[in-house]
């Protein structure tokens, strides 16, 4: 059934009339996503692509359309405010695509979301796509995915597409492809995503795309070892990254000897999770350990 979102989940887009918001909303609609409303202050009463009603604020959009989830394409200065607004209006799922959100803003949001039981994905992430549900919340290219039994979690964007593309071309479709983002403070983290996939009956195998920095992969390895029994393979980016240098993502930095690709590989392999040397090796590695692969 995939995670986080079903075909019938009613979705709204904050910042639907912006340059990026408009472009990706159209792409989401084209994919078949159930977008019921858009929000842009001052544009209430208009429509997007002649069909999606636009509202001045999320509360109005939720009241009128029953939207349950929001995808945010609002510039960094307003992104945290947009998450607050979505949560305040009752959305239980918020996907924040925006790159460059101040970290303290995310810290301040977290208890608000916890108080209300709201799941946040992102910020600074590609969002996710559920091919079997025709639901795309974010910017993942719809043309490289296919329905199937593989779940995919990643901390990055285009590297994910690379692997998803390879899976699809090898006939391994996906339940959900999820990019959680590379910022230091994010909503749904690696572990929480893992638990969601664990709870999803249709996900029969898992691919994890990690990168240097933090210890999310090590924690995931522990969890998988103790709790899960579906095949899992991994790839870790950043083997050649020098310590102390931030590799684009605010979170991708090796500090004090921790968070190296070698650490992560060791932890994963100790948990019985093969780690691919190259992105292209993910598919054969998965087929090798997954006897029932389609």
């Amino acid at each position, binding site marked *: 059934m995939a995670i986080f979102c079903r075909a019938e989940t009613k979705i709204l887009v904050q910042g639907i009339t912006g340059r990026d918001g408009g*472009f*990706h909303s159209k*792409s989401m609609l084209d994919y078949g996503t159930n977008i019921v409303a858009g929000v842009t202050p001052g544009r209430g009463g208009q429509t997007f692509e002649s069909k999606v009603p636009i509202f001045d604020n999320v509360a109005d959009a939720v009241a009128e359309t029953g939207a349950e989830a929001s995808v945010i394409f609002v510039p*960094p*200065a307003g992104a945290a405010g947009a998450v607050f607004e979505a949560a305040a209006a009752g959305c239980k799922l918020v996907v924040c695509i925006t790159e*460059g*959100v*101040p*970290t*303290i*803003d*995310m*810290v*301040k949001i*977290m*208890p608000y979301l916890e108080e209300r039981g709201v799941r946040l994905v992102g910020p600074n992430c590609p969002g996710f796509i559920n091919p079997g549900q025709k639901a795309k919340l974010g*910017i993942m*290219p719809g*043309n*490289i995915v296919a329905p199937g039994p593989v779940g995919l979690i*990643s*901390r*990055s*964007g*285009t*590297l*994910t*597409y*690379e692997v998803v*593309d390879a899976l699809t071309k090898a006939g391994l479709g996906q339940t959900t492809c999820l990019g959680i983002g*590379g910022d*230091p*403070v*994010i909503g749904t*983290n690696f572990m929480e995503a893992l638990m969601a996939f664990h709870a999803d009956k249709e996900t029969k195998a898992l691919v994890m*795309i990690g*990168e*240097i920095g*933090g*210890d*999310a992969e090590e924690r995931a390895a522990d969890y998988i070892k103790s709790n899960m029994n579906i095949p899992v393979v991994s790839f870790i*980016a*950043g*083997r*050649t*990254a*020098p310590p102390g*240098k*931030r*590799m*684009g*993502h*605010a*979170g*991708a930095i090796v500090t*004090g000897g921790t968070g190296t690709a070698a650490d992560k590989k060791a932890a994963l392999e100790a948990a019985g999770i093969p780690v691919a*040397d*190259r*992105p*292209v090796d993910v598919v054969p590695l998965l087929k090798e350990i997954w006897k029932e692969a389609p």
Partner: protein
Amino acid sequence: MNIHEYQAKEIFRAAGLNVPPGRVAATVSEAEALAEEYGLPVMVKCQVLTGGRGKAGGVKFCDSMDDVRTHAGNILGMDIKGHTVHKVLVTPAETIAEEFYVGMLVDRNSRRVLLMCSAEGGVEIEQVAKDNPDAILKYPIDPRYGLMDHEAMTIAMKMTTDVKKARQLAYGMQRLYVAFTHADASLAEINPYIFTDEGVGKAIDAKMNLDDNALFRHSDFEALRDLDEEDASERAAREADLSFVKLDGNVGCLVNGAGLAMATMDLVAYYGGMPANFLDIGGSSNPDKVVNALDIILRDPNVEVILFNIFGGITRCDDVAKGIIAATERMDIKVPIVVRLTGTNEAEARELLAETDLVPAATMDEAVQKALASVGK
């Protein structure tokens, strides 16, 4: 963005921390004048954006004006881990009865600002973390309420049983939290927070890293940026809004997306080559951005081949191809360029590239192998 000790101290002072006076000198005579003003003894401390300044001889106690002249003279111009010292901080030397470590950072696991506190102050905290992790107390702060009085006091009382000192230390932690959040810091450290012989608490060293994502709301912080400390190509990258890190190899990499950029570097190494850089060009197909990126990479005389690895995704590959072609036409590039473009409108892109000198590749692996082949690997 990292800032100097003296700049962090300004921010700490404004937030209400007890920081001894101090100003920077760029010459020996300026340092002498400051020492006269504060009165001996003073400390002369190099202002460079790297750790281990003391070990490198960049921090000196001066008991006489002769000391000030000698040490300021030695330290100014000194090279510390590749950083040239342009400024020294002159500040009164304090008597130190006790030393503590107080630090804060944004913790990805708790998703909160984490207070770190240790009675083993004045030494490298990374070393303490390794040798005796229990000596560092860690406490996540609830952003809704800030660091509450009793939280700070309870932690401080674990550091010292002297209640007067604990009160100062607790207040120091609370002011550090205010400084941290108001400045949008990603790291703030006082190491050491000392008590003088008279029992007065002071922050005598300061370190602060600012969140680049939040600089837009601190227009005054731009003035804190030390252009002397920044590599010219890294500065150009920052100004062009590109994420760039210089490395030691000869394969210049232009990739869209940080994860894919790292994976590309790793793949270069996998096939026996060495990447010249990390560069995330983002999602744009704007020729200007491509020009800027190429310009930055080609400043490095070691670069012998350029490797584009673009996964089009939402961006259309033909758009990106046009951007690359336009950029290469506007520049005079002497090294081979390998281009891997995949995703939406990939075929059209390949057609466009066919009419150029650019070397096309269908996959990451093929692209890396072709790039390495062109430099004889």
